[in-house]
Protein backbone atom coordinates (compact mmCIF):
# COMPACT_ATOMS: atom_id res chain seq x y z
CA UNK A 1 0.00 0.00 0.00
CA UNK A 2 1.59 3.26 -0.99
CA UNK A 3 -0.97 5.98 -0.29
CA UNK A 4 -2.83 6.21 3.02
CA UNK A 5 -5.57 8.78 3.65
CA UNK A 6 -5.74 10.09 7.23
CA UNK A 7 -9.18 11.62 7.83
CA UNK A 8 -9.38 14.80 9.92
CA UNK A 9 -12.64 15.59 11.69
CA UNK A 10 -13.17 18.73 13.78
CA UNK A 11 -11.82 17.57 17.13
CA UNK A 12 -9.52 14.84 15.81
CA UNK A 13 -6.30 15.10 17.77
CA UNK A 14 -4.22 12.07 16.78
CA UNK A 15 -4.10 12.75 13.04
CA UNK A 16 -0.45 13.82 13.17
CA UNK A 17 0.49 10.80 15.28
CA UNK A 18 -1.09 8.45 12.74
CA UNK A 19 0.35 10.42 9.82
CA UNK A 20 3.90 10.06 11.16
CA UNK A 21 3.45 6.41 12.08
CA UNK A 22 2.36 5.68 8.50
CA UNK A 23 5.34 7.55 7.08
CA UNK A 24 7.76 5.84 9.48
CA UNK A 25 6.39 2.52 8.22
CA UNK A 26 7.39 3.52 4.70
CA UNK A 27 4.03 4.44 3.16
CA UNK A 28 2.83 7.88 2.03
CA UNK A 29 0.26 9.59 4.24
CA UNK A 30 -1.98 12.49 3.29
CA UNK A 31 -4.81 14.23 5.06
CA UNK A 32 -8.44 14.18 3.98
CA UNK A 33 -10.76 16.84 5.40
CA UNK A 34 -14.14 15.83 6.89
CA UNK A 35 -15.91 17.97 4.27
CA UNK A 36 -14.18 16.22 1.36
CA UNK A 37 -16.35 13.87 -0.67
CA UNK A 38 -13.55 11.75 -2.15
CA UNK A 39 -10.54 9.93 -0.70
CA UNK A 40 -7.98 11.16 -3.22
CA UNK A 41 -7.33 7.71 -4.67
CA UNK A 42 -6.09 6.29 -1.37
CA UNK A 43 -5.08 2.62 -1.07
CA UNK A 44 -6.11 2.64 2.59
CA UNK A 45 -7.92 4.92 5.03
CA UNK A 46 -7.23 5.67 8.68
CA UNK A 47 -9.64 7.29 11.12
CA UNK A 48 -7.45 8.71 13.90
CA UNK A 49 -8.22 9.19 17.57
CA UNK A 50 -9.49 12.31 19.24
CA UNK A 51 -12.78 13.88 20.23
CA UNK A 52 -14.58 14.47 16.92
CA UNK A 53 -17.30 17.03 17.58
CA UNK A 54 -16.25 16.97 21.22
CA UNK A 55 -17.62 13.42 21.55
CA UNK A 56 -20.82 15.21 22.43
CA UNK A 57 -23.93 13.00 22.73
CA UNK A 58 -21.94 9.79 22.03
CA UNK A 59 -18.36 9.39 20.82
CA UNK A 60 -18.51 9.27 17.03
CA UNK A 61 -22.28 9.86 16.84
CA UNK A 62 -22.01 13.19 15.03
CA UNK A 63 -18.81 12.59 13.07
CA UNK A 64 -20.31 9.63 11.26
CA UNK A 65 -22.55 12.05 9.33
CA UNK A 66 -19.60 14.03 7.96
CA UNK A 67 -19.60 14.21 4.14
CA UNK A 68 -16.36 12.23 3.94
CA UNK A 69 -18.00 9.24 5.64
CA UNK A 70 -20.08 8.56 2.54
CA UNK A 71 -16.83 8.07 0.63
CA UNK A 72 -15.41 5.93 3.45
CA UNK A 73 -18.57 3.77 3.39
CA UNK A 74 -18.22 3.21 -0.35
CA UNK A 75 -14.48 2.54 -0.04
CA UNK A 76 -15.13 -0.04 2.69
CA UNK A 77 -17.91 -1.70 0.72
CA UNK A 78 -15.46 -2.28 -2.14
CA UNK A 79 -13.14 -4.02 0.29
CA UNK A 80 -10.80 -1.10 0.85
CA UNK A 81 -8.74 -1.37 4.05
CA UNK A 82 -9.94 0.97 6.82
CA UNK A 83 -8.41 1.25 10.29
CA UNK A 84 -10.16 3.15 13.06
CA UNK A 85 -8.10 3.87 16.17
CA UNK A 86 -9.89 4.88 19.39
CA UNK A 87 -12.28 7.63 18.28
CA UNK A 88 -11.92 6.16 14.79
CA UNK A 89 -13.18 2.81 16.11
CA UNK A 90 -16.10 4.57 17.79
CA UNK A 91 -16.98 6.30 14.51
CA UNK A 92 -16.86 3.01 12.58
CA UNK A 93 -19.31 1.44 15.05
CA UNK A 94 -21.66 4.44 14.95
CA UNK A 95 -21.50 4.34 11.16
CA UNK A 96 -22.45 0.64 11.18
CA UNK A 97 -19.23 -0.39 9.42
CA UNK A 98 -18.44 -2.46 12.51
CA UNK A 99 -20.95 -4.16 14.87
CA UNK A 100 -21.51 -3.25 18.51
CA UNK A 101 -20.78 -0.07 20.40
CA UNK A 102 -18.22 1.52 22.69
CA UNK A 103 -19.67 2.59 26.02
CA UNK A 104 -18.53 4.51 29.04
CA UNK A 105 -15.66 2.70 30.80
CA UNK A 106 -16.79 0.46 33.65
CA UNK A 107 -14.64 2.52 36.02
CA UNK A 108 -16.60 5.61 34.87
CA UNK A 109 -13.33 7.48 34.40
CA UNK A 110 -11.14 8.39 31.46
CA UNK A 111 -8.39 5.79 31.49
CA UNK A 112 -4.89 6.56 30.23
CA UNK A 113 -2.27 3.85 30.67
CA UNK A 114 -0.31 1.21 28.78
CA UNK A 115 -2.08 -2.12 28.30
CA UNK A 116 -0.93 -5.46 26.91
CA UNK A 117 -2.98 -7.01 24.13
CA UNK A 118 -2.82 -10.27 22.21
CA UNK A 119 -3.09 -10.20 18.42
CA UNK A 120 -5.83 -12.78 17.75
CA UNK A 121 -6.16 -12.35 14.00
CA UNK A 122 -3.18 -11.77 11.72
CA UNK A 123 -5.23 -12.09 8.54
CA UNK A 124 -6.09 -8.41 8.28
CA UNK A 125 -4.25 -5.73 6.27
CA UNK A 126 -3.22 -4.14 9.58
CA UNK A 127 -2.00 -7.18 11.55
CA UNK A 128 -0.28 -9.35 8.94
CA UNK A 129 3.15 -8.29 10.25
CA UNK A 130 2.46 -9.93 13.62
CA UNK A 131 2.98 -13.54 14.68
CA UNK A 132 -0.34 -15.12 15.73
CA UNK A 133 -0.75 -14.56 19.46
CA UNK A 134 1.87 -11.82 19.56
CA UNK A 135 1.71 -9.69 22.72
CA UNK A 136 1.69 -5.94 22.00
CA UNK A 137 2.04 -3.18 24.59
CA UNK A 138 0.28 0.08 23.69
CA UNK A 139 -1.41 2.95 25.55
CA UNK A 140 -5.16 3.27 25.87
CA UNK A 141 -6.55 6.73 26.47
CA UNK A 142 -10.32 6.97 26.39
CA UNK A 143 -13.48 7.50 28.43
CA UNK A 144 -15.78 5.43 26.24
CA UNK A 145 -13.76 2.35 25.39
CA UNK A 146 -15.90 -0.47 26.79
CA UNK A 147 -16.85 -2.66 23.85
CA UNK A 148 -20.39 -4.09 23.98
CA UNK A 149 -22.56 -6.13 21.63
CA UNK A 150 -25.35 -8.66 21.98
CA UNK A 151 -24.32 -12.27 22.66
CA UNK A 152 -25.26 -13.45 19.17
CA UNK A 153 -23.03 -10.84 17.58
CA UNK A 154 -20.21 -11.71 19.96
CA UNK A 155 -20.45 -15.41 19.21
CA UNK A 156 -20.37 -14.62 15.54
CA UNK A 157 -17.31 -12.40 15.91
CA UNK A 158 -15.52 -15.18 17.79
CA UNK A 159 -16.62 -17.91 15.37
CA UNK A 160 -15.52 -15.94 12.32
CA UNK A 161 -12.20 -14.95 13.86
CA UNK A 162 -13.11 -11.29 13.77
CA UNK A 163 -11.80 -10.48 17.26
CA UNK A 164 -8.52 -8.95 16.15
CA UNK A 165 -7.12 -7.75 19.46
CA UNK A 166 -7.81 -8.87 23.06
CA UNK A 167 -6.75 -7.25 26.33
CA UNK A 168 -4.59 -9.28 28.70
CA UNK A 169 -5.35 -6.68 31.38
CA UNK A 170 -8.81 -5.37 30.50
CA UNK A 171 -8.80 -1.68 31.49
CA UNK A 172 -12.46 -0.81 30.97
CA UNK A 173 -14.76 -3.82 31.28
CA UNK A 174 -14.94 -4.57 27.56
CA UNK A 175 -17.01 -7.70 26.98
CA UNK A 176 -14.82 -10.78 26.45
CA UNK A 177 -11.75 -8.53 26.80
CA UNK A 178 -12.27 -7.29 23.25
CA UNK A 179 -9.87 -4.51 22.26
CA UNK A 180 -10.37 -4.64 18.51
CA UNK A 181 -12.57 -6.27 15.86
CA UNK A 182 -12.91 -6.58 12.09
CA UNK A 183 -15.81 -6.59 9.62
CA UNK A 184 -16.83 -9.73 7.73
CA UNK A 185 -14.25 -9.19 5.01
CA UNK A 186 -11.53 -8.54 7.59
CA UNK A 187 -10.70 -5.31 5.77
CA UNK A 188 -12.30 -2.80 8.17
CA UNK A 189 -10.64 -2.92 11.59
CA UNK A 190 -11.31 -0.94 14.76
CA UNK A 191 -9.10 -0.94 17.85
CA UNK A 192 -9.15 1.11 21.05
CA UNK A 193 -5.42 1.06 21.97
CA UNK A 194 -3.03 3.43 20.20
CA UNK A 195 -0.35 1.78 18.06
CA UNK A 196 0.36 5.30 16.79
CA UNK A 197 1.74 6.09 20.26
CA UNK A 198 3.84 2.93 20.54
CA UNK A 199 5.75 2.68 17.28
CA UNK A 200 9.29 3.62 18.28
CA UNK A 201 11.60 3.03 21.19
CA UNK A 202 11.69 6.64 22.44
CA UNK A 203 8.03 6.22 23.32
CA UNK A 204 8.79 3.25 25.57
CA UNK A 205 7.25 0.67 23.24
CA UNK A 206 7.73 -0.02 19.54
CA UNK A 207 5.52 -3.06 19.00
CA UNK A 208 2.64 -0.94 17.71
CA UNK A 209 4.54 -0.29 14.49
CA UNK A 210 3.21 -3.59 13.10
CA UNK A 211 -0.20 -2.07 12.42
CA UNK A 212 1.44 0.31 9.96
CA UNK A 213 4.18 -1.91 8.53
CA UNK A 214 1.55 -4.58 7.78
CA UNK A 215 -0.15 -2.06 5.55
CA UNK A 216 3.02 -0.72 3.97
CA UNK A 217 4.15 -4.27 3.17
CA UNK A 218 0.96 -5.14 1.27
CA UNK A 219 1.37 -4.57 -2.48
CA UNK A 220 -0.04 -1.28 -3.79
CA UNK A 221 -3.59 -1.50 -5.12
CA UNK A 222 -3.99 -4.92 -3.51
CA UNK A 223 -7.75 -5.31 -3.20
Amino acid sequence: MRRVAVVRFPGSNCEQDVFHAVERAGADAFYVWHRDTTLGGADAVMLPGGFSYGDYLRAGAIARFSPVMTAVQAFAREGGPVLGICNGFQILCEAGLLPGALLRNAGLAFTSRPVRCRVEQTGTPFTSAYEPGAIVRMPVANGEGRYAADPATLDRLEAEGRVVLRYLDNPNGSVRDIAGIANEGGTVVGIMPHPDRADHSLLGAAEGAGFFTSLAAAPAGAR
Partner: protein
Amino acid sequence: MTYRVHVRVIPRTGLLDPQGQAVEHALGALGFAGVREVRVGKAIELGVEAAGPAQAREAARAMCDRLLANPVTEDYEIEVEG
Protein backbone atom coordinates in the same frame (compact mmCIF):
# COMPACT_ATOMS: atom_id res chain seq x y z
CA MET B 1 -46.06 26.45 16.64
CA THR B 2 -43.12 25.31 18.79
CA TYR B 3 -43.57 22.33 21.09
CA ARG B 4 -41.39 21.55 24.07
CA VAL B 5 -40.28 17.93 23.65
CA HIS B 6 -38.63 15.80 26.34
CA VAL B 7 -36.62 12.79 25.18
CA ARG B 8 -35.33 10.14 27.58
CA VAL B 9 -32.57 7.90 26.28
CA ILE B 10 -31.92 4.96 28.61
CA PRO B 11 -29.38 2.11 28.37
CA ARG B 12 -31.19 -1.02 27.23
CA THR B 13 -32.16 -3.31 30.11
CA GLY B 14 -29.88 -6.32 30.34
CA LEU B 15 -26.95 -4.16 29.33
CA LEU B 16 -24.49 -3.41 32.11
CA ASP B 17 -25.04 0.15 33.42
CA PRO B 18 -22.05 0.98 35.63
CA GLN B 19 -23.23 4.53 36.13
CA GLY B 20 -26.61 3.33 37.39
CA GLN B 21 -24.89 0.90 39.73
CA ALA B 22 -22.60 3.63 41.04
CA VAL B 23 -25.54 5.95 41.71
CA GLU B 24 -27.48 3.15 43.42
CA HIS B 25 -24.48 2.38 45.60
CA ALA B 26 -23.86 6.04 46.43
CA LEU B 27 -27.50 6.57 47.36
CA GLY B 28 -27.30 3.58 49.67
CA ALA B 29 -24.16 4.98 51.27
CA LEU B 30 -26.00 8.27 51.84
CA GLY B 31 -28.66 6.34 53.75
CA PHE B 32 -31.41 6.22 51.14
CA ALA B 33 -32.90 2.81 51.77
CA GLY B 34 -35.02 0.82 49.32
CA VAL B 35 -33.67 2.27 46.10
CA ARG B 36 -33.26 -0.29 43.32
CA GLU B 37 -32.89 -0.75 39.58
CA VAL B 38 -31.26 2.61 39.03
CA ARG B 39 -30.44 3.38 35.42
CA VAL B 40 -28.75 6.50 34.14
CA GLY B 41 -29.21 7.79 30.63
CA LYS B 42 -29.65 11.09 28.83
CA ALA B 43 -32.42 13.65 29.06
CA ILE B 44 -32.71 15.76 25.92
CA GLU B 45 -35.02 18.77 25.71
CA LEU B 46 -35.88 20.33 22.39
CA GLY B 47 -38.11 23.05 21.02
CA VAL B 48 -39.67 21.54 17.91
CA GLU B 49 -41.53 23.57 15.30
CA ALA B 50 -44.52 21.47 14.18
CA ALA B 51 -48.16 21.66 13.02
CA GLY B 52 -49.36 19.76 16.08
CA PRO B 53 -48.22 17.61 19.02
CA ALA B 54 -48.48 14.44 16.94
CA GLN B 55 -46.21 15.89 14.26
CA ALA B 56 -43.77 17.09 16.94
CA ARG B 57 -43.64 13.55 18.36
CA GLU B 58 -43.13 12.13 14.87
CA ALA B 59 -40.23 14.51 14.24
CA ALA B 60 -38.68 13.64 17.61
CA ARG B 61 -38.96 9.91 16.86
CA ALA B 62 -37.12 10.44 13.57
CA MET B 63 -34.39 12.40 15.41
CA CYS B 64 -33.98 9.58 17.92
CA ASP B 65 -33.71 6.96 15.21
CA ARG B 66 -31.18 9.00 13.23
CA LEU B 67 -29.05 10.52 15.96
CA LEU B 68 -30.23 10.87 19.52
CA ALA B 69 -30.26 7.20 20.52
CA ASN B 70 -27.93 4.34 19.63
CA PRO B 71 -30.18 1.52 18.36
CA VAL B 72 -27.62 -1.07 19.49
CA THR B 73 -27.60 -0.11 23.16
CA GLU B 74 -30.32 2.39 24.00
CA ASP B 75 -34.09 2.75 24.20
CA TYR B 76 -35.89 6.07 24.13
CA GLU B 77 -39.16 7.64 25.28
CA ILE B 78 -40.68 10.86 23.99
CA GLU B 79 -42.97 13.30 25.78
CA VAL B 80 -44.51 16.33 24.12
CA GLU B 81 -45.65 19.19 26.36
CA GLY B 82 -49.10 20.74 26.09
